[in-house]
Structures are given as structure tokens and as C-alpha cells.
């Protein structure tokens, strides 16, 4: 398989600040790579270098086989970019925005109109197509922004924090859209602050911090480093901790840790939230009562803690909560 994105030792300095301090990045054609990192890690800067908005201070990068420095025009024909903040005109209607981008991509007008209708329909924006973007919600703007990047059907798509600031429902909608794009064969580089998002969408995850890659692997590989999901249960009667432990042994994917003082039981699990009802049934069957039961997902902080020994410096917005996982077709 060939590489859609290939970056070697990319550096970007802003005066004293080394936003990127030597990043290598490979993205296979047709795959999704999640660039994961806290605020200020250098995610946006990396996307801007790859999408020809910024010149690297050092290093080199190819996108779609074209050099981002010397063949910027060719790169621009290949890519679509949806930035961290929706960059569409708020005084134009949704449809007008799409027509504008279509014209700027040099598509024949008839094709632009047809493609715009197609995208409005698929992004459930048809009803809002004739309203100016001022009246759109955050989620609608981001969908329209993404639609604008797709008008020329780019083979490589950059998505910079596509769901930051969205409410959970819009976030889910965005995930579905991205998932179906990937199924069509688009190569996607997406940045995110949420481990769960990268987990949902990306084939490989590249973790960056302070302009450097600190981990790189599939979500399973990363999770095994971090410790994966855990079930945390507080038992009502501390004396029954051992009964609870044996009741849950079948469900846990590793050793269960119990803490007597807090009557707490920590069980590593795999399989996500479907395990929750199973665990409750197992406890019921054993006649063990509990005060609290919760699924603990590893967060970006957990990843950082285990990779770097320190927590992500800037407090990220709360990670999206999502019950039940949807498996993405490979």
C-alpha cells in the first residue's frame, strides 16, 4: 500500500516556541490516523503544514505524493481541510457556501449544484440550506464546513478537532459522517483531544505532546499500555468483597483488584459498556448488593500519565460520554 501522507522530521518554530520539534508521520492510503494530544501539543500546526498553510521550518512532507513546500498547488488539488473553527461564511446560506467552494475548486456549475444537493441531503442540512449560517447551531456549521471540504471529493481529508465544542448528539452525527467517508476510501488525518474519539474513528493513533510524537500504534496497543476500560464497583457490605470478586471473575479480562477500606472492586474489562449489564446480573445472581457501579474509560490523562508520567498540562474539555460502541466496518 502506498502512503497518502509521509512526513519526516517536520519542525515548525514560532520564534522561541517549537510548536513541532521533529514529527514523523505515515498515513496509509485509505486509512484513518488520529493525531491525539492536549491543547498546545502542535496538532493544528501539523495539519497546517500538511495542508500548505504553513511552511515547515525544517523537515519535509509529502501529501498525495506531492511535496508540501514545492508542489503546494498539486497538494491543494488533492486535499480537503476542515479547520478547528468552522471557516465558512456566516452571511451566506448553506447552499451558497457550497456553491462558492465548488466554484473555487473549478468544478462545472451543473456538477456543483448537483453535488451540493447531494451533500446537503447526506448531512441532513437540506431544510436549512437557504438559511444563512448565522442561524446554524455549532454542529450544523461544522457539518456544513465538512461538506464544503468534500465538494470536490478530495482523496485526502484533514479534520482538525472535528467535534470539539459539539454537544454529544452532534458529535455522534459527526462520527457517523466521518465513518462513512472512510468507508468510501477517503484517507483521513484527524486531530482530537479525546482518546475515545481516536479509538472510535482511527485505525492508528499518533500521540503528540509538546511537538513530539510520544506514542504511535493501534488503539488496542495504546490501551494495553494505558490499561483499558475498568469496571469500578462499590460493594454495600465489605464482607462480601470476595463473593463479588468470584462472581465477576468470568467477566473481567484481567486480575480484579479489591480495596477493603473503600469496599471497592476494580475489574479490567474489554467489550465496553455491554459488560455493565452482564456485571449487574452476575452480582444479582450471587446476591451481592452494591452502592455504585461505573465504567471507567481511559482518558487522555490516563494515556499521558502512563506514557509520560505527567498529566496532560491543559485541562481538556470533558471527554465525550458514549454508552455502547458501534463497531466500524474495516
Amino acid at each position, binding site marked *: 500500500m502506498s502512503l497518502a501522507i509521509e512526513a519526516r522530521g517536520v519542525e515548525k518554530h514560532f520564534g522561541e516556541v517549537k510548536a513541532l520539534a521533529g514529527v514523523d508521520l505515515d498515513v496509509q492510503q485509505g486509512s484513518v490516523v488520529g493525531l491525539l494530544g492536549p491543547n498546545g501539543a502542535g496538532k493544528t500546526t501539523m495539519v497546517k503544514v500538511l495542508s500548505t498553510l*504553513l*511552511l515547515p521550518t525544517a523537515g519535509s512532507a509529502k501529501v498525495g505524493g506531492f511535496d508540501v513546500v514545492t508542489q503546494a498547488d498539486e497538494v491543494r488539488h488533492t486535499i480537503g481541510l476542515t479547520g478547528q473553527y468552522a*471557516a*465558512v461564511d456566516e452571511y451566506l446560506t448553506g447552499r451558497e457556501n457550497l456553491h462558492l467552494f465548488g466554484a473555487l475548486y473549478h468544478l462545472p456549475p451543473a456538477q456543483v449544484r448537483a453535488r451540493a444537493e447531494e*451533500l446537503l441531503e447526506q448531512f441532513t442540512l437540506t431544510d436549512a440550506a437557504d438559511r444563512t449560517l448565522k442561524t446554524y447551531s455549532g454542529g450544523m456549521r461544522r457539518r456544513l464546513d465538512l461538506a464544503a471540504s468534500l465538494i470536490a471529493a478530495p482523496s485526502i481529508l484533514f479534520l482538525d478537532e472535528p467535534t470539539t465544542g459539539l454537544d454529544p448528539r452532534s458529535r455522534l452525527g459527526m462520527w457517523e459522517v466521518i465513518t462513512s467517508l472512510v468507508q468510501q476510501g477517503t484517507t483521513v488525518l484527524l486531530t482530537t483531544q479525546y482518546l475515545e474519539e481516536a479509538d472510535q474513528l482511527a485505525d492508528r493513533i499518533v500521540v503528540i505532546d509538546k511537538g513530539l510524537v510520544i506514542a504511535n500504534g493501534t488503539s488496542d496497543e495504546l490501551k494495553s499500555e494505558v490499561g483499558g476500560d475498568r469496571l469500578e464497583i462499590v460493594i454495600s457490605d465489605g464482607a462480601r468483597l470476595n463473593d463479588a470478586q468470584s462472581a465477576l471473575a468470568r467477566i473481567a479480562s484481567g486480575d480484579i483488584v479489591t480495596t477493603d477500606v473503600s469496599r471497592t472492586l476494580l475489574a479490567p474489562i474489554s467489550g465496553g459498556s455491554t459488560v455493565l449489564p452482564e456485571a449487574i446480573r452476575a452480582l444479582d445472581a450471587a446476591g451481592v448488593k452494591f452502592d455504585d457501579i461505573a465504567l471507567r474509560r481511559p482518558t487522555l490523562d490516563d494515556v499521558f500519565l502512563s506514557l509520560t508520567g505527567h498529566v496532560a498540562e491543559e485541562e481538556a474539555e470533558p471527554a465525550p460520554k458514549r454508552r455502547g460502541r458501534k463497531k466500524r466496518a474495516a
Partner: protein
Amino acid sequence: MSIATPTMQSANNAARPWYGWFVNDCIAVAKRQIITVLRIPQTLFFALFQPVLFVLLFSFVFGGAIPLPDGGSYREYLLPGIFAQTVTFAVAAATVGVAEDTSKGIMDRFRTLPVNQAAVIVGRSFAEMVERVLVITVMSVAGLVVGWRTHSSLFNVLMAYVMYLLFAYALTWMGIFVGLSVPSVQVAQTAGVAWVFPLTFLSNAFVPTQGMPVLLQHFAAWNPISCLALGGRTLFGNPTGTPGDAFPQQHPVLMAFVWSTAIIAVFSVLAVRKFRNKRG
């Protein structure tokens, strides 16, 4: 939800129109700009409000108090001066507009498209002129209402408007350059207008310059706003005051065109270069 398989191949496969991609891109960007201006009535209102206010203020408040050396009507003297000031304000609209688009990421977004980079701002410069034409028209009407009249050939009147609009176009380019250079919209709001008022008052736009200290008289004589105001008075057949002996005062129309052309030449190159080099 599924995204339909792309129905088209890569973008550059579309047939190139006979007028070329550059014009295509200019039109697309200009169209967006014009729609935007028309959709924000407040902006348009204030763009019109200020010059009209000036017409009324100067005609009715100061009009009686400012005697002209040659004894002509002050209102007829004033209007070409206010035209000059108003087209100078074109710089502010362009500066703020470009800075706003930059801060919203729209300029960056355009830069990731396979468009002719220069077209993005050339198209914009044309679109800005729509607002200028509107403003000049409204002001002319306001002028006619307060008693301003032209006393020259139709050709000369048209020449006067061409002169003003060309200068507006020149300052639009200056504004685009400044807008691309400033770090924020706030700075743009100051940088775009701060120097316009002093510059207009150091000219013959509102009052003859004979009362000024000699050094300032020299400055005012070469000030492009003076050239525009005096040029307009000459072309409209309005009272001119008593122009000095300095070359630009003797040939104000010529100098107005020279100024405009020079500003366009310098700032269009600077602005296009700035836009391209923003990758830094």
C-alpha cells in the same frame, strides 16, 4: 448515513472557461463579498450614515462661519471635499473586512483551495467597489438636497466620479494590505481609520488652507485628499477657493490620478505578496 461515491474526478478536470480560472475565481470571491455586504444592513447603513451626516453638519453648522476667499457658495465648495474624505475611508472598510475574514479562518480556508491566490484578493478589491459606488451615489443625492449643483459638462462630471472611484480603489488595496498585516480585528479597526481624520483635516477638504502655518500649507498642497477635493471642484465647476502655486494645486486632477495609480501599483503588489507569503 452514507456519503455517495464522488461523482466527479479531481477538480482540475473541469473545462476551463474561455475567460480563464483567474476571472472565474475573482467572480466567485466577489460574488460572496457582495452578498455579504448586502446581507449586513447595519454596516451599509453606517457606511452611508457618516458621510451624509458630514454633509448636513458642515452645510448647516459650519457653512455660515466659513467664508470663502473667492466668495463662492460654501456648500458647493464642501461637497467635493466630503467626497474626497469619504473615498479615503474606503481604506477602513477593506482593512476591517480582511482582518475579520483572516481571524475567522476564511482567508486560510481559501488558501488551501487550488485557486489562483491573487484572484482571492483581486476579486475582493472589485467587490468592495460596489459599496463605494453606493456610498458616492447616496452622498451625491444628499448634496443635491442641501443645494450642491454641478456647473460643467457631463464629461467633466463623469471624470470627477472616475477620479474619486479610482482613489477609492487605490485605498481599498491599501486597506487589504493593512488588513492582511495586522494581528487582529481590533488593531485593524484602529489602523484602518486612525490616520484618516488627521489627513483630511490637513487638506483643503473642508476649509481653504491659507489659514494654516506655511509648513502645513506645503503638506496640504501635496496631500492626495487636497488633490481630490480641488480636482473635484474643478471638474464639477464648483468654487475652488484660491489654489496655491504648488504643482499639485495647479494640476489637481492629474495629481489625483498619479496618486491613485501609484498607490494601486505599490499596494496591490504588496498585498498579493503578503497573501501568498502568509505561509511563513
